[in-house]
C-alpha cells in the first residue's frame, strides 16, 4: 500500500472541497432540502399506509349458515378455512354465543329477552392475511354447502384498497419527480464547480491522466456533498419529528396518527444512500462533458 498515493488523492479531494465554500454550501443545501422533502414524504406515506392497514386489518368476513345446516357442513367449512392459505384466523360463533354477544351489544337499547327462540344462525368470523384478498375469499366461501350468506364491508374495503393504490402511485410519481429535479439542480451546481476547473481538467488530461483518474476526485466530492447533505437533512427531520409530530397527532386525533410501526433506521439509511447516490451520479455526469477523449 502506497500511503503517499492515498494522501495525494485525499489531498486533492480536500483541496477541491474547501476551495469554493459558497458552491459547496449550495450543493450540500440542495441535497439536504431534497432529502428532507423525501424523508418527510416517506414518513407521512408510511404513517398513512399504517392507518389504512389498521382499518383493513379490522375487516372481517362473516359467514352465516342456513339454520338447517348440519354439523358436518360446518366442519367441512372449518376444514376449508384451515386449508386456505389466505385466511389468517377464524372463529366459530355458535348461535347461542351469537345471541349472548347480541345481548351485550344491544344492552339498554333493545330488550332481546322478549325473544322466545334464538333466530340467529351459526356463523364463522374470518380474517384474511392480505386485505386485497377479502373479496376473493368471501366469494370462494359463498358457494360452500350449508352457507346462507357471506358478508363483509365491501364498499369500505374497496375504497381503502383503491386509496392504497392511488397513494402508492402518487408517491412513486412524486419521488421520481423529486429525485429528478434534485439531480438536475445538483448537476448544475457541480457543473459550475467543474466549469471553474475546466482548465485544470484539460491540463490533467494533457499530462496523461485517464478520464477515470480525472473523475474520481470529483465523484468523491459529490459523495461528500451527498453524505453531508443527507446528515444535515436527517438532523432536521429528527428535530422536526421530536418537536412537531406529537403535537400533530394530538391536533388530528381522528386520523389515529401512530408512527410507532414506522421503522426509522431503515428510512434514515435509505435517505443517506439516496443522498450519496445523487451526489456521486450528478458529479459523474457533470464532468463528462469536460472530458475530451
Amino acid at each position, binding site marked *: 500500500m502506497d500511503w503517499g498515493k492515498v494522501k495525494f488523492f485525499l489531498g486533492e479531494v480536500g483541496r477541491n472541497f474547501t476551495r469554493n465554500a459558497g458552491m459547496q454550501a449550495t450543493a450540500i443545501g440542495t441535497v439536504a432540502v431534497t432529502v428532507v422533502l423525501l424523508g418527510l414524504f416517506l414518513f407521512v406515506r408510511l404513517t398513512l399506509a399504517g392507518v389504512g392497514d389498521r382499518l383493513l386489518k379490522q375487516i372481517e368476513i362473516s359467514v352465516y349458515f342456513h339454520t338447517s345446516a348440519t354439523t358436518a357442513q360446518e366442519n367441512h367449512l372449518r376444514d376449508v378455512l384451515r386449508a386456505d392459505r389466505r385466511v389468517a384466523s377464524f372463529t366459530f360463533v355458535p348461535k347461542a354465543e351469537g345471541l349472548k354477544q347480541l345481548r351485550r351489544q344491544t344492552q339498554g337499547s333493545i330488550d332481546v329477552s322478549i325473544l322466545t327462540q334464538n333466530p340467529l344462525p351459526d356463523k364463522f368470523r374470518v380474517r384474511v392475511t392480505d386485505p386485497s384478498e377479502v373479496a376473493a375469499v368471501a366469494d370462494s366461501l359463498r358457494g360452500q354447502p350449508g352457507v346462507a350468506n357471506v358478508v363483509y364491508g365491501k364498499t369500505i374495503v374497496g375504497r381503502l384498497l383503491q386509496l392504497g393504490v392511488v397513494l402508492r402511485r402518487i408517491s412513486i410519481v412524486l419521488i421520481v419527480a423529486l429525485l429528478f429535479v434534485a439531480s438536475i439542480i445538483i448537476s448544475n451546481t457541480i457543473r459550475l464547480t467543474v466549469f471553474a476547473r475546466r482548465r485544470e481538467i484539460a491540463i490533467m488530461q494533457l499530462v496523461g*491522466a485517464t478520464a477515470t*483518474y480525472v473523475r474520481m476526485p470529483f465523484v468523491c466530492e459529490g459523495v461528500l456533498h451527498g453524505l453531508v447533505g443527507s446528515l444535515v437533512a436527517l438532523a432536521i427531520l429528527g428535530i422536526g419529528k421530536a418537536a412537531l409530530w406529537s403535537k400533530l397527532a394530538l391536533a388530528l386525533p381522528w386520523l389515529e396518527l401512530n408512527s410507532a410501526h414506522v421503522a426509522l433506521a431503515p428510512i434514515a439509511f435509505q435517505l443517506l444512500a439516496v443522498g450519496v447516490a445523487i451526489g456521486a451520479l450528478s458529479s459523474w455526469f457533470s464532468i463528462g462533458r469536460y472530458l475530451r477523449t
Partner: protein
Amino acid sequence: MISIRNVSLTYPNGVRALDNVTLEIAKGDFLFLVGSSGTGKSSLLKLLYRDAIPTHGEIVVDGIRVDKLRGARVASLRRHLGVIFQDFKLLNDKTVWENVAFAMHVTGAHTREIERQVPRTLDLVGLAHKSRMFPSELSGGEQQRTAIARAIVNNPKLLLCDEPTGNLDPENTAEIMDLLLRINTKGTTVVVATHNQSVVDRMRKRVVRLEDGRIFTDEERGFYYLGLGQGQVLSG
C-alpha cells in the same frame, strides 16, 4: 521516431489546417517547425499528442498509430511524451514541486519514485531552490522551466514545444533553448514550433517550414528563411 504520412486535417468548422503532409523525424532529432501564424504548426503538434485526429493519412509515434488511439490509450501516449506551451499551462494552486509531481502521480508512479525523480528534474531545470513557490510567484522563464520539468519528469522519448518562448524576453528565451538542447543531447527527440527567427538562426538545426498547411521547405542545419541568415533578410 515520428512518421507522418499523407496527413490532412480539416477542422469541423471547415478550416483546412494541414494538406497532405508527409514528414519523417528520426530518433534524437532536434527539429524546428516554422511558418507564420495559422500555417498549421500547432495543428501538426496536436496530431502528435492526439489532441486532434487527422482527416486523412496516418501518424506513427514510436511505433504507435497515434491517429487510431482512443480513451485510456490516449492518456498512455501522453505519459510517454512531453508537451510545453507558450502559456505554460501550469496548475496555479499547486507549487512547482506539486506541478511536476502531478505528471508522475497521473502515471501511478510510486511515491518513493516521485520523491526521487522530482528533485532531480527540478535540479536539471535550475529550479530546485524554488520548488515550494507557486506559479504566480515565478517569472515567465521560471514558469516555462517548471513546465519543461513537468514535461520531462517521466523521461519521455519525445518533447513537443508549441511556441515555448513566445512569452519570454531574449535572455529567458536563450536559457530555455539551452535547456531544450541539453534535454536533446540526452537522447530525447525535440520538436519546436516557433516563429522566433533569432532562435532558429542561432541554433542551426533541422528546419521545416509550413505554408498554408503544406511543407514548403525541409532543410538540415537550416535558417528561419530558406538559405538565408538573419542579416541577409533584414538587409534584403
